[in-house]
């Protein structure tokens, strides 16, 4: 099994540092008033999602985090299940789950892209 796929986790991880910082700051700290996350109301989110820049951000974020977690979880399972066949099964089963989730995640991004 070639292990160089693990390199992907480092590159995506480095990218995620920036992306997660931006993502966290949206609903933490700056957007808390009185009660809870005013930055997360329907209107506030709509406003963000209408901007092409934010759409691009979410697309990159989603792609990166999906790749990162796919490699991560696959790697954990590979350490537990070590037979060739088992590992092949993991690779494809996880790919199926992750691609479906990716498509699901694309829905709000695409839905808002038109305005």
């Amino acid at each position, binding site marked *: 099994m070639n292990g160089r796929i693990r390199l992907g986790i480092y590159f995506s991880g480095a990218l995620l540092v920036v992306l997660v*910082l931006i993502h966290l700051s949206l609903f933490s700290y700056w957007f808390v008033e009185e009660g809870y996350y005013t930055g997360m109301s*329907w209107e506030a989110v709509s406003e963000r999602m209408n901007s092409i820049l934010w759409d691009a951000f979410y697309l990159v974020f989603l792609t990166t985090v999906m790749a990162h977690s796919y490699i991560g979880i696959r790697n954990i399972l590979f350490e537990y299940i070590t037979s060739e066949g088992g590992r092949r099964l993991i690779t494809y089963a996880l790919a199926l789950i992750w691609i479906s989730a990716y498509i699901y995640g694309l829905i709000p991004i695409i839905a808002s892209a038109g305005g």
Partner: protein
Amino acid sequence: MSKKGRKGILGWIIPITNIERLLYSLHRITGIGLTLYLFIHIYETSMRALGRETWISTSEFLDNPVFHIGLLLVVLAAIFHGANGIRLILQELGLIAPKPTQPVYPYRKYHRERRVYMVTITMLILGIGVAIFALRDFLILLEVLGK
């Protein structure tokens, strides 16, 4: 499915011989936790496509202390995973690896001193991250729970 003589999944956590060994366990646990949250989060946000009413009712459903505590844990996990992740990226790829030298007795001391500063920096980043992103949420949470 523990193989003969091997510790199995328990062996991912023990023996705890040093602090990086503990950070390893936490990194793995937060990684799995974040992935689980990611899937829930994707499901939750995809509700937007179903329109304002569904979205708001989902938001209202999620607006209770249990989910708020859960969310705070997720934020803490993300900050830890990120801070430790930066350390791992730098160290695991050998980007800041020192040149090997002949070990000098006492050997154990010699290793510790080399790596402990990286752990210290990680803890610092972690502290700053918590102070910026989670502390205020935590205080607000306490207030909400107090009411």
